[in-house]
């Protein structure tokens, strides 16, 4: 055994809790001059506010609850942010937030689909990494293969998704375990291909997707919102959406009306993989450098965003629009944390706390309402 080697490999292997990008690599604003805040205390206040209005909220129709809660909270957050961290609203910062949102929004949309069929996908981060590496590697060998590499990315995402879906629906594997194992495979394959030292660059031809746009709105955001719109419409109005919700809420009832629960589950995981691959493409266009662990935090971020947006882990509950708003909320909180804190790693804590608080609140509210 060679302990040193292992430690070295371990830092390469860190797939899950990879440190977020450190200062300087990611375009980021210099923070304003406000004092650091305690995210836990902020969350506590939000929680109190939540609980006091919980009973009122319960009387609202579900549609109002589904959208109203995240919108209301977001407006509240926007107002609070305007007071405590005005730097947030500077165009340059907003531009950054939009670029980041395009990535998180896409991953979250995929995650929502999987959550709706009572699953969870912990391999989105790995798929994003794979996309990044694929683009860089293919660019390294031949600079004219950009389009091919993009198609390959999406195929990888779809392949990962199909495998996840089949393991979960046909072999009865717990979703977290299947997707975690998948993460190991994908991340392992990346290591094997890159030998731990990622070669290649992100082709400059790709970068305008994230860097250019209309005004300060990057194309990537437009892509994300367009896909978001399609997902929202298909989930609320499409027959596919109906089958997703039916399978998530009661697979038995769905089966009895002739819906193939396997097909629905596999399709949800597949779409999630594809969206993650798209997000990976946009992410690589945005950051412009190669980091085989950059996608790691998107597992939690996408889940947290969905949960804040009212998507439940039980399945069949929640809306993609809510999740998109949840993503906005999460990103705002994270951005403000970054702006006002010297330590970039507070982000991790904030993400975790936001998710735990959100999911606890939903559980407590729910327990109050279902007697």
């Amino acid at each position, binding site marked *: 055994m060679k302990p040193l080697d292992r430690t070295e490999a371990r830092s390469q292997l860190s797939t899950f809790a990879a440190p977020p990008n450190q200062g300087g690599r990611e375009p980021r604003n210099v923070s304003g001059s406000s004092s650091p805040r305690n995210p836990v205390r902020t969350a506590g206040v939000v929680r109190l506010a939540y609980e006091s209005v919980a009973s009122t909220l319960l009387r609202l129709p579900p549609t109002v609850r589904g959208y109203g809660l995240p919108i209301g909270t977001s407006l509240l957050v926007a107002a609070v942010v305007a007071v405590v961290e005005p730097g947030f609203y500077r165009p340059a910062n907003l531009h950054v937030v939009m670029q980041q949102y395009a990535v998180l929004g896409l991953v979250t949309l995929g995650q929502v689909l999987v959550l709706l069929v009572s699953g969870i996908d912990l391999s989105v981060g790995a798929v994003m990494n794979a996309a990044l590496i694929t683009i860089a590697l293919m660019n390294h060998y031949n600079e004219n293969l950009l389009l091919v590499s993009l198609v390959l990315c999406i195929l990888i995402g779809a392949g990962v998704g199909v495998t996840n879906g089949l393991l979960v629906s046909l072999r009865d594997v717990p979703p977290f375990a299947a997707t975690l194992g998948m993460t190991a495979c994908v991340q392992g394959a990346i290591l094997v291909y890159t030998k731990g030292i990622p070669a290649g660059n992100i082709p400059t031809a790709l970068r305008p997707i994230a860097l250019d746009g209309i005004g300060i709105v990057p194309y990537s955001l437009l892509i994300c919102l367009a896909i978001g719109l399609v997902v929202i419409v298909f989930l609320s109005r499409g027959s596919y959406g109906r089958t997703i919700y*039916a399978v998530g809420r009661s697979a038995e*009832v769905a089966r009895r009306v002739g819906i193939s629960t396997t097909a629905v589950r596999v399709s949800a995981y597949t779409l999630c993989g594809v969206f993650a691959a798209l997000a990976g493409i946009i992410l690589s266009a945005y950051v412009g450098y190669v980091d085989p662990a950059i996608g790691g935090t998107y597992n939690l971020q996408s889940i947290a965003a969905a949960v804040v947006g009212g998507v439940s882990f039980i399945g069949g509950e929640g809306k993609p629009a809510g999740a998109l708003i949840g993503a906005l909320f999460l990103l705002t909180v994270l951005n403000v944390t970054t702006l006002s804190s010297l330590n970039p790693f507070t982000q991790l804590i904030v993400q975790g706390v936001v998710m735990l608080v959100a999911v606890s609140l939903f559980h407590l509210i729910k327990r109050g309402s279902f007697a």
Partner: protein
Amino acid sequence: MNVERALVSARGIYKHYGGIRALADVSLDIGSAEIHALVGENGAGKSTLVKIMTGAEKQDAGQVMVDGREAQLTPEKARELGIGAVYQEPSLIPAMTVLENVFLGWEQRFGLGLLDHRRMRREAAAALDNIGARIHLETEVATLSVADRQLVEIARALVQQARVLIFDEPSAVLSGVELERIFNVIKELRSHGLGILYISHRLAEIFELADRATVLKDGRVVASRPVNELTMEDLIHLMVGREIGARHLRPEAARDRIVLEVDKLALGQDREPISFELHAGEVLGLAGLVGSGRTRLANALGGIRPARAGVVFRNGRPVRLKRPSDAMRAGIVVIPEDRKREGLILGHSVRENLALASLKELSTIGMVSAKAERRLASEAVKVFAVRPPAIDVATGTLSGGNQQKVVLGKWLVRKPSAEVVVLDEPTRGVDVGAKYEIYNLIDALVARGSGVVLISSELPEVIAMSDRVLVMSAGNIVGELKRGELSEERILRLAVLGREHELAASEGGGDAA
């Protein structure tokens, strides 16, 4: 039997679930060295009483006395006082061994939490020997037969020093030799001075086993007598006789066109294949006890759990019923028994539930037409008289009867309309008003030319609604009764005693006919 001699007795127990009365003024004594049978039809309140006497549920009024003293029962308290129960549903951990299960929650230990394996082994072996069970202590429960599992549960009660044992319808899950074994064990336990409460709705076994029988009907005790003062006729009389109220009789079906022909459908090992025909405009009642195979038959027809062999013909053509969509295509619809688990998505709105079975018809290029969906839902809500007549409320907020109407609506507003409709206990847990609306609906179905298979445990309902009744017992069809021959007693006799007895009775001079 007086209270002092009774080990456990119930005194004036009342219990309501929501607005529905489950038990009213029920009193019952279990004495030592006595087998006390509790009989009654499905829904008479037997299970509720068991739950109260084992502390699983709390009564609204009345007391449970143990050794003449009032006891506030919880499951732990009941066990401490020596009340054990053998349930139908699994109360053993399948992945654990017999020994572990016998002593679960009752582990014998030395200090430091160390288990006294030797002592537990000895006691469990003794208990199993006592009841003549030859089950290895290290066997995983998952690999045991249902009968052996019941023996393990009995052994568990014995090592916990139970003085009263409650058997919750063992005959619903056991048959033949296995049941005989349990009977012998029960008699053996009686000879050791235990008090036994034996729940059943199979009358024959009451006479074989019990010393005393208490009959429940609609949550009330209608009789409690020593078995030797009772005859089979008495018991049947006491159990039946529920009123369904006046209903106009539908004119008898023409029976000119066969819409469904079931040919030697094999539903399980050691079950005879099932064959019957269903005519257009006919209501075919399917009677039998719980566990007699009626739901299994329904699930086979709906492609939910395909049959092992056999052919089903629709309008003379054989159809494949491997999955639910096959049945839907073939125009066969099965309205499930458990509407909360199998029929409805309670979190969905009424509209979404109603549309679920018609998604294909409502969609163009993958998009559900909101207009068509609302039209369908509104129509269904009107036709099926769902109250409140709103289509956007969560289905879970409706009453049981209205939920049932939504289930019916979901399947019956589908176009093209199903020609074969199988209704599995359509009126269970439904209030009286909704019941009649469901009856009218059945009338409407046959009027439009559909064939209806009506599975029901409510005999008056089966008799009032059916043109013809098939009686099932132990997975087989044991008799067919035409409208003129229908009576609760005849159906019950077939369902309880099976075909052999009927044959024997008729050969012996037809004294029971």
